[in-house]
C-alpha cells in the first residue's frame, strides 16, 4: 500500500473512532461522505465482508481522483459533503392520495396516457394500487425462476447469489474506472440484477417498471446483467414516467456481460426532471454504462432515448472482446431550454471480425447544448473490424447548439470505418407543408422529429417506442412558433 493511501486510511479510521458513530437503527445517514458512511451503508444492507472491502477500496480510490471537466457541459461544483448517501424510503412522507401530488406532474402523466393506478404507483402514493404491481412482479418472478432466470434487486442478489455477484461485479466497470463510477462503487444503494443461464431465451422483456421496490431506488443505482452462453435477454430501464427527483446527482453504473453466442438488448428511456424553463433545478445524470461481449458471436445492443435531466453525461459502450461479436448503439438525445447533453458511445474492438453500429440523433431546442462524443477503437489484433457511424443533429431555433466529436483510434490496417454526419434545421418549409394539410405546428414538429428519430425508435420494444414518441413531444413542447 502506498504511503498516501495509508495516511488516508489512518485519517479515516481515526474519524471513525472519534467522529460520528454508526447507528444501524437510523433511517438515514447525515450528509457527507466518509469511510464511516460507506460502512454504515454496507451494514444497513447487511452485506458480506468482501463487498464492504470492495466499497472501501473504491472509496479510497475516489478520494484520489479528480472530478472530470473535459466534457462539454457546465455546472457549478458539486459539494460531495453536502449529499445524503443513504436514506431508506420514508413511507410516512409519501402522499396519501393523488390529491397531494404536484398537479403539474399529474398533467404530464396524463399526457403520457398512464392509467390512474400506475400514476399512483409512480407518484409513490402509499395505497393498495401498489399491491397489484407487487403481485404482478411475483407472478413474473415465478415464471422466470422456472427457467433459471434470476431477476431481483441488487441487494437481494448480494444475499441470495453472492457467488455470481462476486464473480461479475466490477468485471466490466472496475471500481476505479472513473470518478463517478468509483463514487457509485463506494456508496451504491441498490439496483437490478439479472442472470440468464446457458441456452435460455428470456421469454419477456424485463423491466424495472414491474419491480416496485426500484421505484424508490436512489441516486446511486448499480445494475448487473449476465447472459450465459447462448442466452438472450431484453432489458428495459426505468419507468418512463418523469419522476420528480429532488436529488441533484444521479451517478449510476450498469455492467453487461455476454458470454459466447449470448445477446443482451438494453433499452433506456430517460426522463428525469430537466429543470424548469429558466434552467433551475434538474438532475445531473452522470452514468457509466458498459457491456462486454466476452464470448464469441455475442451481441450487445444499447438503445437510449434521453429527454430528461438538466445534464446528461453518459457513453454506453461495448467492449468487443469475443471474435465475431457485435456492438450497437442507437441514441436519441433531446435537449430543450437550458438542458445540456454530452453523450455517445465507445466501441472497443478487440476480437477478430467484430462489428459495431452507431446511430445517434441529437435534437436541440431552446438554449440547450447537445453534444455527440464517440470513440471507435480498433485494437491491433482486431482483424477485419467494421464500424458504421451515423450522427445526425437537428436544431430548432438559433439559440441552441449541436456538436459532434467522433474519435478514431485504429491500430489494425484491415479495419473498415464509415462515418456519416448531418446537421439540419427543422425546416419552416416542412412545418408550413404540414400546416397546409391541416396539421398544427405542434403536431408537425412532433411528426418531423419522430420521423428524424425513426431509425432509433424502431429498435425499441413496441410500448416503449410509443411512450418515447409521446415524451419527445412533451419535451419539445413550445419550442417552435
Amino acid at each position, binding site marked *: 500500500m502506498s504511503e498516501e493511501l495509508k495516511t488516508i486510511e489512518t485519517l479515516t479510521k481515526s474519524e471513525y473512532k472519534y467522529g460520528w458513530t454508526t447507528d444501524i437503527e437510523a433511517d438515514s445517514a447525515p450528509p457527507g461522505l466518509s469511510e464511516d458512511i460507506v460502512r454504515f451503508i454496507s451494514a444497513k444492507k447487511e452485506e458480506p465482508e468482501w463487498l464492504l472491502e470492495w466499497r472501501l477500496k473504491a472509496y479510497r480510490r475516489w478520494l484520489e481522483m479528480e472530478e472530470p471537466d473535459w466534457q462539454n457541459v457546465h455546472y457549478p461544483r458539486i459539494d460531495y459533503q453536502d449529499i445524503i448517501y443513504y436514506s431508506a424510503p420514508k413511507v410516512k412522507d409519501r402522499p396519501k392520495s393523488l390529491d397531494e401530488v404536484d398537479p403539474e406532474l399529474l398533467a404530464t402523466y396524463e399526457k403520457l396516457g398512464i392509467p390512474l393506478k400506475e400514476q399512483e404507483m409512480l407518484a409513490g402514493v402509499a395505497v393498495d394500487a401498489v399491491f397489484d404491481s407487487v403481485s404482478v412482479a411475483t407472478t413474473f418472478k415465478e415464471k422466470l425462476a422456472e427457467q433459471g432466470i434470476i431477476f431481483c434487486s441488487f441487494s437481494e442478489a448480494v444475499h441470495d447469489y453472492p457467488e455470481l455477484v462476486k464473480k461479475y461485479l466490477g468485471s466490466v466497470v472496475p471500481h476505479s474506472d472513473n470518478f463517478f463510477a468509483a463514487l457509485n462503487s463506494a456508496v451504491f444503494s441498490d439496483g437490478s440484477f439479472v442472470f440468464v443461464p446457458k441456452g435460455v431465451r428470456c421469454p419477456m422483456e424485463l423491466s424495472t417498471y414491474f419491480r416496485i421496490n426500484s421505484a424508490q431506488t436512489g441516486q446511486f443505482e448499480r445494475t448487473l446483467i449476465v447472459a450465459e452462453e447462448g442466452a438472450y435477454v431484453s432489458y428495459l430501464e426505468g419507468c418512463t414516467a418523469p419522476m420528480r427527483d429532488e436529488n441533484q446527482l444521479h451517478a449510476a453504473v450498469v455492467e453487461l456481460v455476454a458470454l459466447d453466442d449470448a445477446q443482451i438488448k438494453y433499452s433506456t428511456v430517460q426522463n428525469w426532471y430537466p429543470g424548469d424553463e429558466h434552467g433551475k433545478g434538474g438532475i445531473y445524470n452522470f452514468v457509466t454504462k458498459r457491456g462486454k461481449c466476452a464470448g464469441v458471436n455475442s451481441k450487445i445492443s444499447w438503445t437510449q432515448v434521453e429527454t430528461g435531466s438538466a445534464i446528461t453525461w453518459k457513453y454506453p459502450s461495448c467492449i468487443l472482446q469475443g471474435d465475431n461479436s457485435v456492438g450497437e448503439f442507437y441514441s436519441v438525445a433531446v435537449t430543450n431550454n437550458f438542458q445540456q447533453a454530452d453523450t455517445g458511445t465507445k466501441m472497443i474492438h478487440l476480437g477478430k471480425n467484430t462489428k459495431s453500429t452507431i446511430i445517434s440523433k441529437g435534437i436541440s431546442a431552446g438554449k440547450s447544448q447537445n453534444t455527440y462524443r464517440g470513440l471507435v477503437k480498433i485494437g491491433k489484433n482486431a482483424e477485419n473490424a467494421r464500424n458504421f457511424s451515423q450522427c445526425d443533429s437537428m436544431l430548432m431555433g438559433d439559440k441552441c447548439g449541436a456538436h459532434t466529436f467522433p474519435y478514431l483510434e485504429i491500430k489494425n490496417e484491415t479495419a473498415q470505418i464509415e462515418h456519416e454526419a448531418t446537421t439540419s434545421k427543422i425546416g419552416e418549409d416542412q412545418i*408550413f407543408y404540414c400546416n*397546409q*394539410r391541416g*396539421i398544427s405546428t405542434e*403536431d408537425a414538429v412532433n411528426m418531423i422529429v*419522430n420521423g428524424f*428519430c*425513426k431509425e432509433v425508435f424502431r429498435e425499441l420494444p413496441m410500448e416503449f417506442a410509443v411512450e418515447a414518441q409521446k415524451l419527445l413531444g412533451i419535451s419539445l413542447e413550445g419550442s417552435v412558433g
Partner: protein
Amino acid sequence: MLEIKNLHASVEGKEILNGIDLTVNAGEVHAIMGPNGSGKSTLAQVLAGHEGFEVTDGSVTYEGKDMLELSAEDRACEGVFLAFQYPVEIPGVSNTYFLRAAVNAQRKYHGEEEYDAVDFLSLVKEKMKIVEMDEKFLNRAVNQGFSGGEKKRNEIFHMAVLNPKLSILDETDSGLDIDALRIVAGGVNKLRSKDNAIVLVTHYQRLLNYIEPDFVHVLYGGKIVKSGGKELALELEDQGYDNIREASDSAVAV
C-alpha cells in the same frame, strides 16, 4: 367562394404582390399564367397562409370569412389546398401516416370522428386509383427520394384524399412526362365538381388542353394585367409575354 381585393404582399420589405383582384366562384377553373418571378407562387402561398409573406394591404374573403385572419392549418381545414411547386420532403414519416394525420386533423376541426389506420387504408386505396398511384408510395417517407414527377403526382393524390373546396395547383404539370400529365390531369378532372373550384398556375397551354379553364389571367409584376377566356392561353402560347410586358411597362411609365 374566393374574393381577392387589392391584395398587396411583401417579403423582407420587398413588395411582390401589388394589387391583385380576383374572384373565383364554385364550379370554376381559373388558370394563372405569367413570366418567371411575376408572383404566381407568392400569391398561392399567401392564400395558403404562409407567414413568411406580409400582407400589407387589401382583403381576401373566402366562403364569407376574412381568410387573412385564419392560420394556415385552419385554412386547410376550411377546404383550402395548395399543391406545391416544390413539394417538401419529410424523412422518416410515411406518406400514409402523414395523410392520416392531415385528414384526422381536418375531421377533428369539423367535430367528426377520426379514422383508424384500417379504415383509412381503404379510403386511401380508393383514392390512389384516381391518379393511378403505385402502392409503394404509401409506405415511403413523404416525398423523400421521389422523382420530380412523382412528387407532383403525390400532391394530386393528397388533393384526392383531402377533398378540398378550393385547390390551388402551382405548376403541377411541370416535371410530369406525357403519360403522367394525362393521368394527373384526368385525376384533377375527376375531382372537379360544381361545388369546388380550382386555381391552376401553369406556364403551358398543354395542361389547359386537358383541364379546360373558364378563365385565364396573366400575372405580371405582382398584378393581374390581363384576363380572358381559354383562348387567351392560346394567344400567349403563340406570342409570348412581349405584348403584355410592353403594355404594362408603358402603363407604369405614364
